[in-house]
């Protein structure tokens, strides 16, 4: 609009009506009508037309810049959220989930050892509980408006002290040799597997859902920017073509420079976003999906271990739905099936040898665990509880317990998770990097392009003086 406020060009007769009589009441309707009238008058002369064209083309180039800044800034924000906020929160939720399952496993292991409960088992339980409480506080602070996350965090906050209370009563009774301790432990385990773990799983899924929403935002194509860029290029092309037809001059330097700036900005946008998109896709498929599968597999392993312990603690006191089999033995078999399926899927998702190695090692551990479990179970079913116990929890003479196999599985899965987390962070950061400078760059190029348009048109206008 700057052009129209300039002093009217000397050539072109109808300059008079532009300065309309200010007598009438200048309502909005009349101001608009007046502007239209002015434009119509300007359009009847070539300099007037040139001014209008210059203003429009420069406006379109600026619009392209503005839309690009707006769209890319939104995507950069989402990508930053993926790397710096929603993924860590999802990882924290996974950590709460794992800590709870781990605490349940540790408490049952410690219970089986009775008064000889090894110090490190107790410490593991305490560390899990402290970790889960700390992460719950931070999850609550970050849950924001997410109703589902808040609901689960509240539930976990209410149930966690209840669970620890049951565990301590189980320990106190067990230390006195009272079978009641086992009943308390089974009740605690029931609370864990029917209340706490499902809530932790739902929290993890809600947080992962938010992460995926951020992914989708960051990865969505900047269609408005791309459209505006193409429109700007078309407008510039048309202006130059018109110029060529009127003057037979092939190039107008200003317009050519503006075209170059717009083209660079458009290509930068297209390539930069495509690269970011592909890196984020990699982070999701190779990092986050693997993390999810491995987290689920690890929970299955932990629950299987807890059920293996509980088979020995309950000693057939609780039957499965078929009224014949031991409930905890049936649950153990189901957990092991989930674990097998999870490891198989994780192996398929692993994209390099460094990712496959720990998963394969976990699968070997599971095979060994199953063998040792079967042997211990057979001993127990024969009625030799005293011999079955060390086969499961291990002692100085039983380094080859099923517990040792479980430790191998758990450690391998932890390594696999660490690897996938690193893969994720690397890919997501490189995706974020691809957006680098795009916001400032496209803004600067658009301003430069618009300026070049004005300069180019100004040059043509000066020929009419």
């Amino acid at each position: 609009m700057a052009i129209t406020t300039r002093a009217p060009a000397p050539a072109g007769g109808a300059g008079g009506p532009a300065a309309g009589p200010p007598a009438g009441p200048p309502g909005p309707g009349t101001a608009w009508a007046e502007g239209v009238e002015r434009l119509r008058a300007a359009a009847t002369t070539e300099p007037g037309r040139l001014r209008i064209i210059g203003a429009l083309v420069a406006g379109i180039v600026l619009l392209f810049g503005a839309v690009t800044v707006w769209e890319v800034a939104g995507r950069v924000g989402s990508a930053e959220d993926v790397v710096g906020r929603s993924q860590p929160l999802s990882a924290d939720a996974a950590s709460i989930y794992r800590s709870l399952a781990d605490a349940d496993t540790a408490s049952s292991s410690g219970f089986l050892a009775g008064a000889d409960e090894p110090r490190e088992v107790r410490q593991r339980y305490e560390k899990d509980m402290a970790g889960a409480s700390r992460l719950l506080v931070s999850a609550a602070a970050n849950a924001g408006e997410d109703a589902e996350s808040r609901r689960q965090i509240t539930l976990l906050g209410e149930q966690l002290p209840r669970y620890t209370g049951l565990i301590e009563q189980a320990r106190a009774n067990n230390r006195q040799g009272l079978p009641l301790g086992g009943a308390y432990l089974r009740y605690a385990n029931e609370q864990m597997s029917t209340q706490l773990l499902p809530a932790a799983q739902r929290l993890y899924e809600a947080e992962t859902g938010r992460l995926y929403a951020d992914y989708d935002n960051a990865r969505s194509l900047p269609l408005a920017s791309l459209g505006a860029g193409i429109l700007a290029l078309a407008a510039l092309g048309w202006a130059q073509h018109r110029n060529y037809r009127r003057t037979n001059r092939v190039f107008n330097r200003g317009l050519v420079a503006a075209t170059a700036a717009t083209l660079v900005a458009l290509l930068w946008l297209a390539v930069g976003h495509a690269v970011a998109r592909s890196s984020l896709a990699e982070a999701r498929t190779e990092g986050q999906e693997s993390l999810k599968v491995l987290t689920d597999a690890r929970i299955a392993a932990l629950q299987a271990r807890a059920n293996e312990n509980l088979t020995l603690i309950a000693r057939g006191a609780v039957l499965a739905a078929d009224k014949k089999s031991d409930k905890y033995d049936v649950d153990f078999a189901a957990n092991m099936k989930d674990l097998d399926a999870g490891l198989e899927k994780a192996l398929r998702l692993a994209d390099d040898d460094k990712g496959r190695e720990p998963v394969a090692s976990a699968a070997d551990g599971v095979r060994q665990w199953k063998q040792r479990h079967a042997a211990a179970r057979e001993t127990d079913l024969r009625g030799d509880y005293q011999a079955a116990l060390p086969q499961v929890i291990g002692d100085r003479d039983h380094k080859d317990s099923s517990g040792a196999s479980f430790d191998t599985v758990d450690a391998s899965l932890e390594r696999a998770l660490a690897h996938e987390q690193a893969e994720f962070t690397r890919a997501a950061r490189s995706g974020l990097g691809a957006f680098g400078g795009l916001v400032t760059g496209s803004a600067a190029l658009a301003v430069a392009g618009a300026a070049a348009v004005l300069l180019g048109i100004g040059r043509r206008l000066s020929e009419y003086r």
Partner: protein
Amino acid sequence: MRTGVRREDEAPRGGGPAGGRTRPPRMRRLARRLRGWGGVSAMAAACALTAAVLLPLAQAAPEDGPAAAVRPPGSVAAVPQAPWTLTDTCPDPEASLRPSAGDGPTIERIRKAGKLVAGVDQNSFAWGYRNPVDGRLDGFDIALVRAIAKDILGDENAVIYRAIPTNQRIPALQEGRVDVVVRTMTINCKRLEDVAFSTAYFEAGQQVLAPKGSPITGYDASLKDRRICTAAGSTAETALKAQAYGAVPVSVPNQLDCLVRLQLGEVDGIITDNALAAGQAAQDPSVRLVGSPFTKEFYGVAMHKGAPDLVRRVNKVLEDYRAGGGGSPWMQAYARHLGPVLPGVAGPPAPKYRD
């Protein structure tokens, strides 16, 4: 005792772990009750009059209950509904083979092996559990196993104990993994199809367990609006379904889970076998048995169906075990393991034989 015994209420009933059996007729019950009273204190004797007056009303026999006949008469009279009775599908399930000290193929095999293989519980306080002091198996059931081993092998320690869960008791016997099962196992008709039983070595009954100071007085109208816990599939659960006295039933997987719920304040009382309830009371001094047992269930030593020689031999051990009145091995084991938590038992149930 057996003569004149007739069965009533022989309709089949779903058999849970605690099973069910036929109610003895009133005549025999009266005789038993009078015999039971004979051994109790003067206070109980004074109460016996009240009990006798109430006999036509009260179906539950309070003969072995620690708090026998302390139930206020009013609470019974106030209940219009008929009390629930336990039934079974065959006459006299607790009648076994006549005792014999003779040897047979099974005894020979055990002698050759040099050890008696006994399936026991290690989770049932006062019956079969690991003594917290030395970690060794101890309890009323274990004492009986030792007596059987001493008789057959001459050494009460010549035993291989196999801790078997409830659901493995019958398979363990059928597959020959154990020679005997001594594990608070109720004799009932359904189990008799799969295994053989010795004569009864203990008489138990369903009874109410409540915290001290609770207004609950027994299996009666005082249960109204109280949350009462039973183990899933147990006789107590069946009883509560048939006659709840207005109680709110709560079902849990195992009878010990009831004590957990009671301590946590999630239920107000428990109905279970009084022998197991005694184990619960032993683990929590703040609960006690109230009212009197309202069923009769007999515990027996279970053996393979094809080992009549062993059944007769164990019955012979039981004859000796019961003999001697107040100083019998049975009474000594009772005083040691059960007396403190299940007082008021005058003696072992009288044996019944079917041949």
